[in-house]
């Protein structure tokens, strides 16, 4: 399909700029002017709408396809949250208004929303204070590891290492490295959780923190979680909860009760805000009381007269990690979602998410190798190793599923499972959809037995077949240029 830059005609316009109503024609000195072509297309509004609608039609999405992409929690995004996020009172609000003298009173609704959201997230996680500022999960991790650093710095601790299990998300070690720490990877044991002996062996007084996902990326809950936290605290290391998988344990366990010191949440996962093709997300960070003084500034504070204001007076704060108060529009959606579901609704989310995942796991374990055959939480991780023996890889199975109209699971992650197929159905999928998926997976396994060579051609139903990724990396073509 042609690019938008290849469409259009010289002189065609897509948007009418209003005529100037001021009697001034200003100019700038010639040496400060752009001399080059700005390279934008010349297309009509209809050209634009048709172009992007055609592009949209080439995507799988939650609204059109089952999307069991493990670790990403691709649940349904309720439509009413889009409507409330678009209210002009939120959407047209300048972020600097509350920082102007007399402007705070004109943003009370927005500040109250942030304040209430913090309270809700504290209760959901068992933490004592939250910042809404981190702009995505990984950004929350960075905030968290910087808080770990601030804590040790203020105590005069000389710490060097952050421990992460080998099943962790790649963002964990990457975030720890940016906060100035060396990363030590702890292997998993044969039950799929962090090897406790290896953990003890590496847990020296040089360890600044431990980053854990719970349940972990295998979808397994580690029953020794409290012991792990207690041991970390015994060497004055902080324990970080990666909230990517909170969906599984809403109302069933609160990280704060167990001993975690810092958590981040992914509002775009647990609280159903749309993933937008890769973002925006939001990654609020919660801490226990003893760390609240390190949270980023500003903070929304409730005055005794019932009004809200932005407080910047936290001298030990790590500072500004975002320009303002977080991805506010995303926070509005998540806030509305939490209020609609309420206490019982959120617990129901966890229950049905775990039910769906276990159902899929039980139905498929005869057909795919299940490296850790135990109860799972919100997701289950299979291996395509049996199929691989016939020459059919996890990637091949993924491509087969595309032809069946199903977005594939996450593949080749977590790294500790060979040929991993990481399936997260989420709670919003009905039994018929799960059964259809299970049938497709079983048929894929059978086809791999009988006609493994067929897989090389999948997918066949999509606008393109498998792109040549080696060529893409070798002959870099990262933008269109006029011929």
């Amino acid at each position: 399909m042609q690019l938008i830059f290849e469409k259009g005609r010289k002189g065609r316009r897509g948007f009418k700029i209003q005529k100037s109503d001021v009697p001034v024609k200003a100019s700038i000195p010639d040496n400060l002017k752009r001399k080059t072509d700005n390279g934008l297309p010349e297309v009509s509004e209809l050209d634009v709408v048709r172009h992007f609608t055609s592009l949209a039609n080439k995507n799988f999405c939650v609204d059109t396809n089952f999307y069991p992409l493990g670790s990403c929690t691709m649940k349904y995004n309720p439509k009413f949250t889009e409507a409330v996020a678009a209210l002009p009172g939120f959407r047209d609000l300048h972020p600097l208004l509350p920082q102007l003298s007399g402007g705070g009173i004109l943003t009370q609704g927005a500040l109250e929303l942030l304040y209430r959201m913090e309270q809700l997230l504290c209760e959901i996680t068992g933490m004592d204070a939250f910042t809404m500022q981190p702009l995505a999960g990984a950004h929350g991790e960075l905030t968290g590891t910087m808080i770990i650093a601030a804590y040790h710095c203020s105590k005069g601790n000389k710490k060097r290492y952050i421990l992460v299990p080998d099943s962790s998300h790649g963002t964990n070690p990457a975030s720890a490295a940016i906060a100035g720490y060396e990363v030590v990877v702890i292997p998993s044991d044969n039950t799929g959780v962090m090897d406790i002996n290896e953990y003890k062996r590496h847990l020296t007084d040089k360890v600044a923190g431990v980053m854990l996902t719970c349940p972990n990326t295998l979808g397994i809950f580690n029953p020794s979680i409290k012991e792990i936290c207690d041991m970390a605290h015994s060497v004055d290391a902080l324990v970080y909860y990666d909230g990517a998988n909170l969906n599984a344990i809403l109302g069933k366990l609160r990280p704060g009760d167990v001993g975690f010191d810092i958590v981040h949440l992914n509002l775009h996962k647990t609280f159903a805000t749309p993933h937008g093709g890769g973002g925006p997300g939001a990654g609020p960070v919660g801490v226990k009381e003893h760390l609240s003084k390190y949270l980023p500034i500003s903070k929304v504070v409730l005055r005794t007269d019932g009004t809200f204001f932005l407080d910047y007076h936290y001298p030990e704060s790590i500072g500004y990690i975002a320009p303002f108060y977080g991805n506010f529009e995303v926070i509005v959606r998540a806030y509305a979602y939490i209020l609609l579901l309420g206490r019982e609704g959120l617990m129901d989310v966890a229950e049905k998410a775990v039910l769906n995942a276990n159902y899929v796991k039980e139905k498929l374990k005869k057909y795919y190798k299940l490296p850790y055959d135990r109860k799972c939480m919100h997701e289950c991780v299979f291996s395509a190793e049996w199929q691989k023996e016939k020459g059919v890889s996890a990637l091949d199975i993924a491509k087969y599923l595309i032809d069946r109209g199903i977005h594939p699971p996450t593949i080749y992650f977590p790294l500790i499972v060979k040929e991993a197929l990481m399936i997260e159905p989420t709670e919003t999928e009905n039994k018929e959809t799960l059964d259809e998926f299970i049938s497709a997976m079983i048929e894929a396994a059978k086809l791999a037995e009988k006609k493994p060579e067929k897989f090389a051609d999948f997918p066949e139903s999509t606008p393109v077949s498998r792109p040549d990724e080696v060529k893409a990396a070798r002959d870099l073509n990262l933008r269109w240029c006029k011929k």
Partner: protein
Amino acid sequence: MNYTPHTEEEVKQMLSDIGLNSIDELFSDIPEELRPKSFNLPSGKSESEVVNHLRYLASRNSTSLVNFVGAGFYSHYIPSAVDAITSLPEFYTAYTPYQPEASQGWLQAIYEFQTAICNLTDMEVANASLYDGGTALYEACMMAMRINGRRKIVVDEGVNLIYWTMIQCYISNLSLDVVKVPVKEFGLDRDKFLDSMDEKTSAVVLQNPNFFGCIDDYSDIVEYAHKKGIIVIESVYPLSLGLLKTPGEMGVDIAVGEGQSLGIPLSFGGPYLGFMATRKEFVRKMPGRIVGKTLDRKGRDSYVMTLQAREQHIRREKATSNICSNEALCALRALVYLSLLGKEGLKELAQLNLDKAEFTRQQLEKIPQIKVFRDRPIFNEFPVILPERADVVVNKMIAKGFAAGFPLGRYYKGMEHNLLIAVTEQRTKEEIVKFAESMEAVLCS
């Protein structure tokens, strides 16, 4: 329940298929003593109840002030087609295009976004977006250090102070040297700036228009920097590039910026759009996702995420950045916005901003108490010097229905009387005239 479709019958059936008797058994791995000490959340509400509550909160925010506040974040008109396109569920309810065959629409859109950013900035390659202008600037500094291995960054004070504070926060645990060079007369102090650039300097950071709205040509700085092996990073206001000399024309190495002005609502601070563009030779040092064009098995054009070996999911602690989620939907907004405006529209819009700002300066100059700063050329924002504290004037102007500007004393010592005024195409002649009258009334009272 609300979005869970399971009937009681189905739950029983599914549990039985799993070999369990109750939902509770699904959670038996969680020891009793670890169960929540409390979970005191309000009971669920109906959609209409929640919507009413949110409407109430929204109504307690004023959007009726006539806005002259910019300071890096501007109210521009957003064509309806931008919202229509980004509201297509095939865009907004999809995720990162990990499976290219099922995501060609998104991948092509990102490739087009990269092209639009390259064209706008006159740079060779761009990434698929970063969180915001501030994190893009920080990432550019880290990237420069990967390129030349040096550990000192020199930042002009004309760079948005929010971004300066963000950079300081991010590097606090890394042994880096960051130097800020004070501005002179609201612009770059060239002598001091050149003096601060030495063999240890990895990168210099500039902004155009700078925080005070003043515009410049940094070609001379670039030339000097390149002689010393220093990377030049420029933060730009993308809409101004309809008119202003581009990073590419100046020879800049890394161009970054906040894309909010390109069809993204102010939304009380986010989501916004960080963008980054650079030279082709540095592409492997660049953070964030990148989409490339290739061929499928039948020789058809197709698009994939490429150079992923830079990224955290492959490289983990050795990655160029920890970024995973980006701001793809905001990038799409910017792409649709730029496509609608088109080649001529962008120029016209930039000119309109320039004209309205100039008209506003002329109106304010008629007021004897106001000194309008004229020593440097501007785009759509400019400082004025008031006879009293600017924050006090702003406070009085709010009562008259105006957000009169950003009081520079909030960020800069010694600038307590200075007000930074932004004028976009949204401000009408009538509003501007009334604004000047109100300013005069406030200053005379």
